[in-house]
């Protein structure tokens, strides 16, 4: 899957440098290239080459009977008219506009609360909120699967002990909300840490000046802190966009609890996986993966662009 390439000056050599370099300078450059070389070898072998190969595969069709044939853009055309693929992308888009703002809002809130310095046990709280991220997604989903369980899950048992009927977590909507909940639980702490780290780097003089001017803590948060950490917030949004469209573990594991609700096409990644390994149609799966990468790139670009525009306007 194409990942975002961060534009950066990491490897840009000074353009205007004279061809004559001192020995020491040259040695420094050599060392720098030697140090990034391992990364580039792995990057080439594990990302670029497979990506090119997948791109190549996506233009073929390999039938169980009849073998391989070149089909041009047929796989892409098929994907764009495939209700399963479009439906899964739509579901993730819904996920993106509902779950992500909620999650990032809470992350921001917790980060601000921790940063305000007005909390007791702030180190413990920070750890406690972060810990779910350290729990492997597989374990997390199994755990939540147990909690949601319709017969023996604790939630259901509390409900039936109180004489009510437990909510069904495994309907179409229930499952969407259940998975959103798992993702929130997993990633609120992770995003909180990114935001919190950014908050810590704001020079405290700004707060002092604001307090002298009579600003309340809330005003400081709203007018100083949040604008100052906009790049970090943007980063968490981009991560969330990518993470959302690539959702896989949670639905895959929940599928054992509600196999007919999740189906093979709940998320685009799950669908591509099933096409590749159950339908044995690697070529079509490659086309789906490329299209998904394209969707992610476009959405990420839109997010970035709108953020930049806001910055310019403000």
């Amino acid at each position, binding site marked *: 899957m194409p990942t975002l390439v961060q534009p950066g000056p990491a490897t840009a050599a000074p353009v205007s440098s004279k061809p004559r370099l001192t020995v020491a300078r040259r040695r420094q450059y050599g060392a720098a290239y030697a140090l990034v070389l391992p990364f580039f070898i792995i990057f080439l072998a594990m990302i670029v080459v497979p990506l090119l190969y997948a791109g190549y595969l996506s233009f073929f069709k390999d*039938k*169980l*009977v*009849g073998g391989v044939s070149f089909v041009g853009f047929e796989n892409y055309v098929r994907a764009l008219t495939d209700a399963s693929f479009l439906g899964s992308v739509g579901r993730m888009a819904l996920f993106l506009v509902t779950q992500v703002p909620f999650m990032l809002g809470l992350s921001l809130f917790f980060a601000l609360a921790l940063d305000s310095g007005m909390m007791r046990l702030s180190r413990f709280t920070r750890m406690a909120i972060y810990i779910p991220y350290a729990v492997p997604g597989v374990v997390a989903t199994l755990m939540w*699967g*147990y909690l949601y*369980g*319709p*017969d*023996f*899950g604790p939630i259901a048992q509390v409900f039936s002990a109180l004489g009510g009927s437990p909510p069904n977590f495994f309907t179409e909507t229930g499952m969407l909300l259940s998975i959103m909940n798992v993702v929130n639980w997993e990633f609120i702490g992770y995003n909180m840490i990114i935001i919190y780290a950014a908050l810590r780097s704001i020079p405290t003089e700004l707060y002092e000046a604001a307090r002298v001017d009579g600003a309340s803590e809330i005003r400081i948060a709203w007018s100083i802190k949040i604008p100052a950490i906009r790049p970090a917030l943007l980063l968490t949004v981009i991560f969330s966009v990518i993470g959302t469209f690539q959702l896989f573990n949670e639905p895959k594991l929940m*599928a*054992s*609890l*509600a*196999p*007919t*609700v999740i*189906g*093979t096409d709940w998320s685009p990644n799950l669908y591509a996986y*099933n096409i590749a*390994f*159950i*339908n*044995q149609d690697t070529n079509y799966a490659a086309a789906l993966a490329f299209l998904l990468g394209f969707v992610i790139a476009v959405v990420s670009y839109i997010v970035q662009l709108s953020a930049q525009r806001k910055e310019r306007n403000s």
Partner: protein
Amino acid sequence: MSSQFDRRKFLIGAAGAATSGWLLAACSGGDTGSGGTPQASASQIPQADIDKALDTETTLTFWTWVPDITNQVKMFTDTYPKITVNTVNVGQGAPHYQKLRAAIQSGQGAPDVTQMEFQYIPSFTLGDAGSLLDLSPYAPADIQSFYPEWVWGQVKINNGLWGVPQDTGPMGLLYREDLLSDAGIEAPKTYDDFAAAAASYHSKNPKSYLVNVAPNQPGQMVAYLWQAGVRPFKFDGQETVTIDLANDQAQKVIKFWGDLVTSGGASNDPDFNDSWYQGLAGGKWASLPIAAWGPVFLQGTAGKTSGKWRAADLPQWDAGQTVSSNWGGSTDAVLKASKNPIAASQLALWINTNKESTLRFANEQFLFPAMNDVLTDPSFTGQESEFYGGQKVNEKFAQISETVSTDFGWLPFMDFVYSNFTETLGKAFADKTDAVAGLQAWQDGCAAYAKDQGFTVA
């Protein structure tokens, strides 16, 4: 998609299940099943060549997930010390086949011998590119007589012998003696009785059901169809498949289970997940139609219900008949690309036909045997199981194995067929909608896939 691989999941747990009271009867010695003196037919590899190959330094690779199978492999290498076998577990079920397909496609890294379930054989013998070795020339001439007829039919397909049967899963009915007698119900003998019992049982026990119809369990549903005489899948080994899931006979079976679900007489929970295990242990179901690997599995899952279960035949469509079917079971197959086909085929044959080795499979690893010799061996059939109130459960399922109906074929893409089940018929069970319409959707889904993959659909 993980759900259809229950037998494998069971196998993971089998070693653990061995702790309870099921006796590990000592193996009685005996002649080797594979030895003998085959009457070499023209096409057969001469015994001298086999002896020579087994006396040559050879290294074989064997991909399998069966727990403790190294025991049997060691027995083989002790007998033929010049053969070295690397036993590798590359994953259970789906991951195993994915890696096997990848290795075959890339032309390197594939094993010599591999675990291969019955329903996967056609997908590996497909067309000219078939990747399994026909074992006929390597096997004893009388090998057919080692097995019940239906087992032979699972491995001898389109004139090739594609694997050596290792274990099977004849279908029976496990039921809770205590719950049924409390409800005043006898173990149902026919499906009419079964439907009546389901309704009556549930009305007396609103929180419990006679049976569950799992919307994610194509293996079980296919076994029900198999029992009723439905033969939905055919494959000519080249490019013609027959998909006949929605015929009258199949509709009758599916309507039966669909009606049970919609009337509320049966639950429709997904199976082989934690909630289902707890349900089994907690008395949510009074019966469990399951294969011969089920009794040991259940014992490990629902340990606290020990002594309350019994094993019986599946209910019958016609009173007076006794017909069963199969769910699960596997073979050891040899890949065509193996550089040592003789040694590889002898490994597959030896561990699965040598009496001592197969008895260990049955009595130590709890693989339900495929061979007649083991199915009738007193050390296997004579075990009385406390969990089943002292019943000789092995003997019961060995009898059931004789009643499995023959000639059940598979399609060369069962992954898709099983996965599509959950999307179509399974979904109808889960949503309590028209099951027969779901069956038709399953038929249509499979046929469309077959056409898209270039098959001629008859």
